[in-house]
């Protein structure tokens, strides 16, 4: 067996689990409010920058910035919902689609203005280096990022299924009117979901900052892939988003290895198109 394949399989899991975490935040917002958060990639970027600045100015390792990124992005997400998105919820559908797009452009360019378009890297994170495991070189920061992503994903799933607030969120996702009738404050749930969705991708940003380069437009491709993953997994399904994220990690890495790296993203989106053609609601969607 080609020894290189084992390495690629490992890499697939590593990148796939981070994709999953990014996508879970998006699917939560989408499922609860039917709002496509086009600014999702920018939330990722902000998470990365928060980790970067805490590292540069206060020498705080990205590992310890995770709660800060989560908290800041939670507040930002909830605020964006409260002051911007909630206003258009009762408006035309087009306005709802466009408003997060506007937020995305605003955030990316605000970042350019505040921090210049230059590329930043966290040079000496606590977790760095590679473990040599036979034929496989396991990057330690990537491993930590993917392990962390899996744990956080499991955590959010538990929160949604086992806690009262979590169940309320799921209820609103399933049927908004009924949830309202059951006495759930849907406005509060909306804000909470937006906040939690943003916090999740903020955490993903903190993880990514340990090994990826940071700059204002970094959200672009990650955001695009996360839309694809959400649609593949099924809108609103957390398990679906997690599964689809891992799947896309495999498709991208193995597709690039076996076919042609030039087409690896084409293959990703092709897989998405085929799935949606066979099963429009996605893998685990309702």
């Amino acid at each position, binding site marked *: 067996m*080609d020894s*290189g394949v084992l*390495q*690629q399989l490992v*890499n697939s899991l590593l*990148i796939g689990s981070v994709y999953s975490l990014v996508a879970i935040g998006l699917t939560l917002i989408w499922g609860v409010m039917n709002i496509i958060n086009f600014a999702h990639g920018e939330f990722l970027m902000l998470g990365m920058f928060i980790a970067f600045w805490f590292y540069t100015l206060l020498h705080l390792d990205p590992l310890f910035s995770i709660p800060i990124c989560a908290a800041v992005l939670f507040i930002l997400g909830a605020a964006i919902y409260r002051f911007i998105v909630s206003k258009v919820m009762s408006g035309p559908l087009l306005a709802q689609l466009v408003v997060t797009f506007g937020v995305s452009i605003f955030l990316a*360019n605000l970042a*350019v203005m505040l921090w*210049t*378009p*230059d*590329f*930043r*890297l966290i*040079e000496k994170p606590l977790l760095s280096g*590679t473990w040599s495991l036979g034929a496989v*070189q396991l*990057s330690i920061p*990537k491993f930590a990022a993917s392990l962390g992503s899996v744990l956080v994903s499991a955590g959010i799933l538990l929160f949604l299924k086992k806690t009262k607030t979590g169940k309320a969120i799921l209820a609103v996702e399933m049927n908004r009117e009924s949830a309202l009738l059951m006495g759930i404050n849907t406005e509060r749930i909306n804000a909470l979901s937006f906040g939690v969705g943003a916090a999740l991708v903020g955490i993903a940003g903190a993880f990514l900052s340990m*090994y*990826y*380069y940071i*700059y*204002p*437009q970094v959200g*672009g*491709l*990650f955001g695009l*892939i996360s839309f694809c993953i959400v649609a593949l997994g099924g809108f609103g399904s957390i398990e679906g988003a997690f599964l689809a994220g891992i799947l896309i990690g495999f498709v*991208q*890495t*193995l*597709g*690039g*290895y076996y076919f*042609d*790296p*030039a087409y*690896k*993203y084409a293959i990703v989106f092709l897989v998405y198109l085929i799935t949606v053609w066979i099963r429009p609601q996605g893998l685990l969607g309702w």
Partner: protein
Amino acid sequence: MGNVTRRRFLIGGSALAVSMPWLVSETFAAPTKTIKIGGLYPLTGNLASTGLDCKRGAEMAVEIINGKYDLNLPLAKTEGLPNLGGAKIEVVWADTKGEPKNGQAEAERVVTQDGVVGVIGAYQSAVTKTASQATERLRIPYVCSDSSSPTLTERGLKYFFRVSPHDGIFAHDQFNFLKDLEKVKKQKVQTLGLLYENTEFGSNVGKQENKYAQEYGYQVVADISYTANATDVTSEVGRLTKANPDVLMHASYITDAILFTKTFKEMGFNPKGMLTMAGYIEPGYLPAVKADGDYVIVRSTFALDLAKSKPLVAKVNELFKKKYGVDMSENAARSFTAPFVFADAINRARTTEPEAVVKALHETNIPGDQVIYPWKGVRFDPQFNQNIYATGTLVQVQNQQYATVWPFEAAAKDVVWPFPAWKSRK
């Protein structure tokens, strides 16, 4: 008509007569003209840091042309263009956002709406391609000194001129270097891995390298094209590790240069040498990767150590550093030249009328001591409008600094070969 009216007529008439000369001179005097040139660069988007770099180079050049500087550069010692009454150059900046479709739109906009008489830019060959197609249609001259795809000057365009070397020249340089390495340093190379980003720039480099590999008798064991803004390049590096080439030739922009360097280190990819283009010489590259960038060899037109043989380089860099707080980079240095070529041509043509400027551009003959590169000067061949004196050098990163290592006769430092393995470094 009474007494009062006649008096009024006399007073008004004499006042008019006295002010006549002043009025006439105001109406018919030519005010100091501004000559507008369009500057197209990726000022936002993924390559915004590069765009800013290029913009600074061009801005610095315009400042020198418009002001009075004791430098051996065209039109530096006079203020503005002397043959046009001291007219000054003004650059109308246009943001291409790094996309070819915007290159075309912005070129059209600056010509039709802002009335520019010429265009410079746009760094990315794919964007320069569309922008220059627009200017060709509009019959406006375009002088490019920062895009390297050879196809740009192979389209038979009449209004497009390129000052800097193209990737055919750079690729040829890389192979000449490998041959020299064998002859002089006795280091043999047999297999090559070609890695390039998939737009106009990278794909053409790939073609050129394949061509020369065949000509020079090297075996290409990996030929990989990829998307510059990838989230992950482990597949690409996996394929390279499997193919195990002696030398890697990589044509990238800055984002992929950074990502690949990190992945090469992570996956332990150790070729005997890395010959690269563009991304690795961006000012943002070394600050991002620090010591991991050491020993990479990059094609260049400019290096600060040229100052040893050309003091002009040090003087220009001093001005640049004073204004922007950083040393001049290769990008800034390349974009620095186009405004001079334009100003020189317009000055000789004594008009901004496009046909006359194009004629003047064809007659350009700027001597080698008036450019900040190791060139014999600027002179365009009549068929392709490419500067026949444009040549490249190779620099290597040593201790996080770029040092000229080839041609060996002009080298500031000795080349370090082979590429020290990742594990053996600190």
